[in-house]
């Protein structure tokens, strides 16, 4: 009997290869429970009722530096968090790779940069990054109070590491935010992110 069961299961196993799909704008954002730099756990589920921003970051990435050294990221963070959004900076660098930091280092960097992020989630396993198909730093996701994705992709339309590129750049996240606040549809819902590769551990596949 067990033989039969196992045979069936092996046949079926080939049918089931679990694939998780890419997060889709307008649909539910992948659930996650993260460990924050302050030692707490944060559950996306618990943040229902407020807007949530996910920002993938790596403090050594030049594209991230552009947005922080110019104050552009902080300005964006302040604009959203001052109106009640919960901003989560996510660090998905694997241990030993660029951008990987301990909890205290993460806090220190955020303080030094004057970050307005509500919390910083450490994701050294890359689990959250993979669930969101995050590829680059910086990369942004905006989630509405019902837990659905409103926007995902690049922070702006200038794929450059130069601070001068910020002049005249269109900040997709701010645009989406203003549209939402005015009760409008988000006009640009998804863009191709640019920047440094997220330094995931190599041991696991991306999907």
């Amino acid at each position, binding site marked *: *009997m*067990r033989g*039969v*069961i*196992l045979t*069936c*299961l092996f*046949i*079926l*196993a080939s*049918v*089931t*290869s*679990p*694939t*998780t*799909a*890419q997060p*889709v*704008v*307008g*649909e539910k954002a*992948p*659930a996650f*429970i*993260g*460990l924050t730099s302050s*030692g707490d*756990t944060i*559950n996306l589920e618990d943040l229902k009722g407020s807007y949530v921003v996910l920002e993938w970051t790596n403090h050594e990435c*030049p*594209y991230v530096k552009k947005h922080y050294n110019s104050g552009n990221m902080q300005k964006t963070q302040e604009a959203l968090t001052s109106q009640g959004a919960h901003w989560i900076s996510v660090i998905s660098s694997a241990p030993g*790779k*660029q951008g990987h930091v301990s909890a205290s280092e993460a806090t220190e960097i955020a303080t030094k940069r004057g970050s307005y992020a509500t919390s910083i989630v450490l*994701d*050294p*396993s*890359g*689990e959250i990054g993979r*669930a969101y*198909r995050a*590829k*680059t730093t910086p990369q942004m996701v905006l989630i509405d109070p019902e837990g659905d994705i409103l926007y995902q992709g690049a922070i702006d339309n200038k*794929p*450059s*590491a*130069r601070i001068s590129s910020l002049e005249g750049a269109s900040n997709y996240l701010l645009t989406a935010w203003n549209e939402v606040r005015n009760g409008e549809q988000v006009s640009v*819902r*998804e863009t*191709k992110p*640019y920047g*440094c*590769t*997220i*330094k*995931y*551990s*190599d041991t*696991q596949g*991306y999907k």
Partner: protein
Amino acid sequence: MTFFSRLAVSLFVFFAGASAHAQELFEYKDSHSNVALYAEKTAANNEEPLWLAFRIEPKEGWHSYWKNYGDSGAAPILEWTLPEGVAIGEPLYGTPHRMPVGPLMNYGYEGASSLLLPLTIAENYTGNIIDVQLSAEWLVCEIECVPQVGEWSFSIPVGQAENINASIFAEARSMLPELSYWDATLSVSQNASELLVFVDESELEGLKSAYFYPESEGVALYADTQTWEVSGDGLRLRIPREGELEPTTGNGILELEFDDGRKTALELEPTLNSALSIAGTNNTPIQIDQSYDLPIWQAAMFAFFGGMILNLMPCVFPVLSLKAFALISANHKTTDGRRKEGWAYTFGIWISFMIIVAVLMILRAGGAAIGWGFQLQDPVFVGLLAILMVIVALSLGGMFNIGLGGAEGAGQTLTEKDGLKGAFFKGVLATLVATPCTAPLMAPAIGFALTQSILTVALVFSMLAFGLAAPFLALSYSETLARMMPRPGAWMEKVKQGLAFPMLLTAVWLIYIFDVQAGGIATMILLMGIIGIAFGLWLWQQTSGTVGRAISLIFIAGAAGYALYQASISSPAPTAVDESVYAYAPETVAELRAEGEPVFVYFTAEWCITCKVNEQVALNSSEVKDAFKNKGIKIVKGDWTNRNAEIAEVLAKYGRAGVPLYLFFPAGASEAKVLPEILTPSIVVEAL
């Protein structure tokens, strides 16, 4: 470009480079790369464009990027300041390489590469010199990335021109893809893009590999493998993709490699057909054949074989034997009649499956966190099945005096009726008794199917139904098979009596599940109910008058009704708590992990055979228990015997629609190791 011509070019470049000194417009060394700008002629004029080459040479081991950089990176940015009447066109890029970075894929160049740019001047341009300013930014990466920047001013004379820098331009042009005269279409759907290149098969003889570099985002999942085949139409390339982003163009570079070492890169401009735009224009979720990952025919085939295997399950086989015996003893019927009955039987199975699936889909659409096996999460249904099993067993055992023609008894009145209706209800009965077997055994496959489009679900379940019905359908059609069946006789009674026992065993298993779900008192009442029903059926047999039959009916209905009512209001008995095992709650796991403990989480259900086998064979083995103990691993158990939204959510997170699921969180790390669905002690111990 063949290998030899490429070699020739490289040699030419080498010698030319050695003999003629290149004349650059500027040369620049940045921290991780050298760049230079070359003109192909000594001067510009309005007869033809003057080609410029912006050559990037990254440090050894570093790379630069193609215009579509793949998953991450950045294309070079060149910003020109030119006098009026002078223009610089879009750059031409060489064929990129694939560069995997961890789990991602980048497109770019490991060695030196050039962007070729045409400079044109208008007829009415009067100056004799062109002052040019260039501000450039180009990214080079090894694993880390370093953007490089530079700004230069230089001038280009206008007038009669002589060719220079031939080697530089020969090198740059040798890297360009060839313009292709092949027609192509690029069809983009939710999970894949299909590139169809119309080309004669003879041109593709000896093809070893084919790869398409799309220019636009939204065409490909860069890190996934592209598969190709050569058919009558030409070359068909399947490119996995995902997401909502609409491609802006179908253009790209097709790279072909042949057995004899030939390698060509072709610039294709396929017609772009996107199935996304229809879905993308409004906010409705996209519902385009989501099962593309597993070809639909393959899923259907698996379901069909799964259905056939179900025929051998201990709970189904006895019921099928009834059908078989009916066939054997129905030799007097015409072939036509038998075929009709075969189809009626198939139809009965199919309808039952469709009803179960429809209920499941409706419940899921209503937001209920359930997966396949949901039927067994309801004690009322489990109790009903247990009753059904006992009744079938008793009738098989002969208590209800089943002659092959005139059976009495509840299930039998339905199934033994002559003709099509009888065959139909036999199909329904087969599906019903098959449920306890399908649920645990088929849960993963069915769970997967349920995430697909409604059409796919219907197809998969239809094939499952056909698989279950197949043996008898075949029997009803084939004269040869029918003739091979043994002659009817007294032996059939004996076989049937013997088959009552597996049915009773199934009932015992169901009662065990029922006990876990509804508690001891409800179980006792269920057992009493079963005996009451059996008594009522027996009474039915003994009496023939209206009054007697009415009394027996009251017995049957009352016993069943009371037992099931009791089931619906009961809650599980508090189980003896194993101190060392934590009950699952997301917070519990998070807390243990935050304390830096290694945690093993497993999700199980009483009705899940695989889970129980795994627990017996692996988790409860002394080998594994010792390993847990020695390593101080905390054990968390999630029990999905009854419905539980939190557990359903975790299962979904790991791409499962049902139990089992085994997760191990090593101390400190937040990365869960997912163990396979079938465990042995060594698999578990090695994972820890």
